[in-house]
């Protein structure tokens, strides 16, 4: 099943990416056109459309994440969360090279390509444990997470923290880019375990 859903995900990616792109573009265009009808000049109309929309890259990533996660016996949901790097601009995080960037608007967000499904452990399922594990990792241009750590634990006894980390390590991403070049970013993800 894991293989099947992984293959499905791979095949769904290209059209999914285009659909997400088209849907966001349609919204922004509609807003710009309406602003123009209200008498704004073009530059203001566009600026307002983007301001009202919020982060385009972040939205697209979350839209993709919503689609890529399918549910079986143990439904789960993954949210790529911005690591809220504070004010404007990206921040240089690490002293060593290559630099690790925070995910903010100067950077195009990484796009999840393959997401292995975290499995419920039988103990956690029996305990009817539900909730979210928040993990943080460094995502280098290779597209595979390194330095995965749990930043908000759900369960250290019945295996769900470990399961979230194990799953995240297997995921593959299209890396974040800065000015068109792939860069390393630090990202937070929420792996949510929910019983149907």
């Amino acid at each position: 099943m894991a293989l099947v859903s992984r293959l499905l995900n791979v095949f769904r990616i290209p059209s999914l990416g285009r659909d997400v792109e088209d849907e966001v573009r349609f919204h922004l265009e509609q807003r710009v056109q309406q602003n123009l009808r209200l008498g704004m000049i073009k530059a203001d109309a566009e600026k307002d459309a983007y301001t009202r929309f919020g982060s385009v890259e972040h939205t697209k990533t979350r839209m993709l994440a919503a689609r890529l996660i399918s549910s079986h016996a143990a439904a789960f949901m993954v949210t790529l969360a911005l690591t809220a790097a504070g004010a404007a601009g990206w921040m240089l995080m690490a002293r060593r090279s290559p630099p690790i960037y925070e995910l903010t608007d100067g950077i195009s967000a990484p796009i999840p390509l393959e997401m292995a499904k975290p499995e419920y452990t039988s103990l956690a399922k029996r305990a009817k444990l539900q909730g979210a594990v928040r993990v943080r990792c460094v995502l280098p241009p290779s597209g595979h997470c390194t330095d995965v750590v749990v930043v908000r634990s759900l369960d250290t006894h019945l295996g769900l923290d470990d399961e979230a980390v194990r799953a995240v390590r297997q995921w593959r991403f299209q890396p974040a880019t800065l000015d068109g070049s792939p860069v390393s970013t630090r990202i937070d993800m929420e792996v949510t375990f929910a019983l149907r």
Partner: protein
Amino acid sequence: MHGFAIAERIHETSADILRVEEGSLYPALHRMEEAGWVTSEWRASDNNRRARYYRITAGGRRHFAGIESEWAAHVKAVMRVMRLA
């Protein structure tokens, strides 16, 4: 209804009180579709652009009816506490 129209409807019916980032509407719609509460299809819009139209499902209506009564009970409880304070 496409996402833009839904965003506009939310602004209008809430008399502009509910102001959320319009972008956050879309991941929510996509999750609702994955959950089976809405369906979507691509159609030509009024201005002949390719747009995704959403429609609530019967399961979605049932789900939201449940949420609505939970929410009403929640608001009532908060109001009671505020009056006592």
